[in-house]
């Protein structure tokens, strides 16, 4: 099983094709790599997030506002929101592509998921920034 990666390279692929490393679909590897990069980023971000949430359990409004207003929580929350919704969009896309069979429905679902993820990420970032910059009352 772990032998698979040492299998001899296929002679049917041209040197240029091997160098590009994209395969016949010409795309897909970016999706795979982006999913891994966001996954690696989310390991420390998620651990920080849980620790931070334990710290603000049951916090009243002023405590919450003060907490988000500090630079580190604001910055890490923005990074967390970007990585989370990027990773979620990629992961949900794979699930949709596996289970939604009609082409139009599949593309429609992927588009909707992407738009919702972008909207949620931006909403979260704007909320964090307005709290951090004191725009919110």
């Amino acid at each position, binding site marked *: 099983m*772990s032998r698979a990666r040492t299998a001899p390279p296929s002679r049917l692929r041209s040197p240029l094709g091997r160098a590009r490393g994209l395969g016949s679909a010409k795309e897909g590897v970016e999706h795979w790599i982006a999913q891994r990069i966001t996954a690696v980023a989310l390991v420390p971000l998620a651990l920080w997030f849980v620790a931070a949430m334990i710290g603000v359990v049951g916090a009243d409004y002023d405590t919450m506002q003060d907490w988000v207003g500090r630079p580190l929580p604001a910055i890490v929350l923005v990074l967390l929101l970007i990585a989370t919704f990027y990773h979620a969009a990629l992961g949900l896309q794979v699930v949709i592509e596996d289970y939604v069979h009609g082409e139009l429905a599949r593309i429609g679902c992927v588009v909707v998921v992407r738009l919702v993820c972008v909207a949620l990420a931006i909403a979260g970032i704007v909320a964090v920034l307005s709290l951090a910059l004191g725009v919110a009352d």
Partner: protein
Amino acid sequence: MADNKTSQPAALTPALRPLSPHLQIYRWQLTSVMSILHRASGIALSAGGVLLVWWLVAAASGPEAYNAVQNFLGSWLGVLLLLGWSAALFYHLCNGIRHLVWDTGHALDLRSTYVGGWAVVGASTVLTAIAWVAGIWHWVG
């Protein structure tokens, strides 16, 4: 069953290969259950992301909206959602690390997938428990 087939020509002998999963009699394995749970927890966490954004937007909207969310999260349904969400997060996190190890081409043999699988089950359970003990400690104290 195999004895009856020995007298038949080889070409007519049905190969004794495993059949595709027949859900009523399917014997579940740790590996497949964990694979399904990885997807399920990922979908659950996406829904949890909506909760996070709702919380942040409410906080930015003012004390009234923020207190409404806090009251919901403090209700039994809110606590249940947070419990499920935190368990899904720790599971997806630990199993995600297992996936990243696999992506490097390591630990792909059958024994390693079970050792790693049980390690993930144990680690995510312990981490969820620690988070809730710490959270309740902080809440009460």
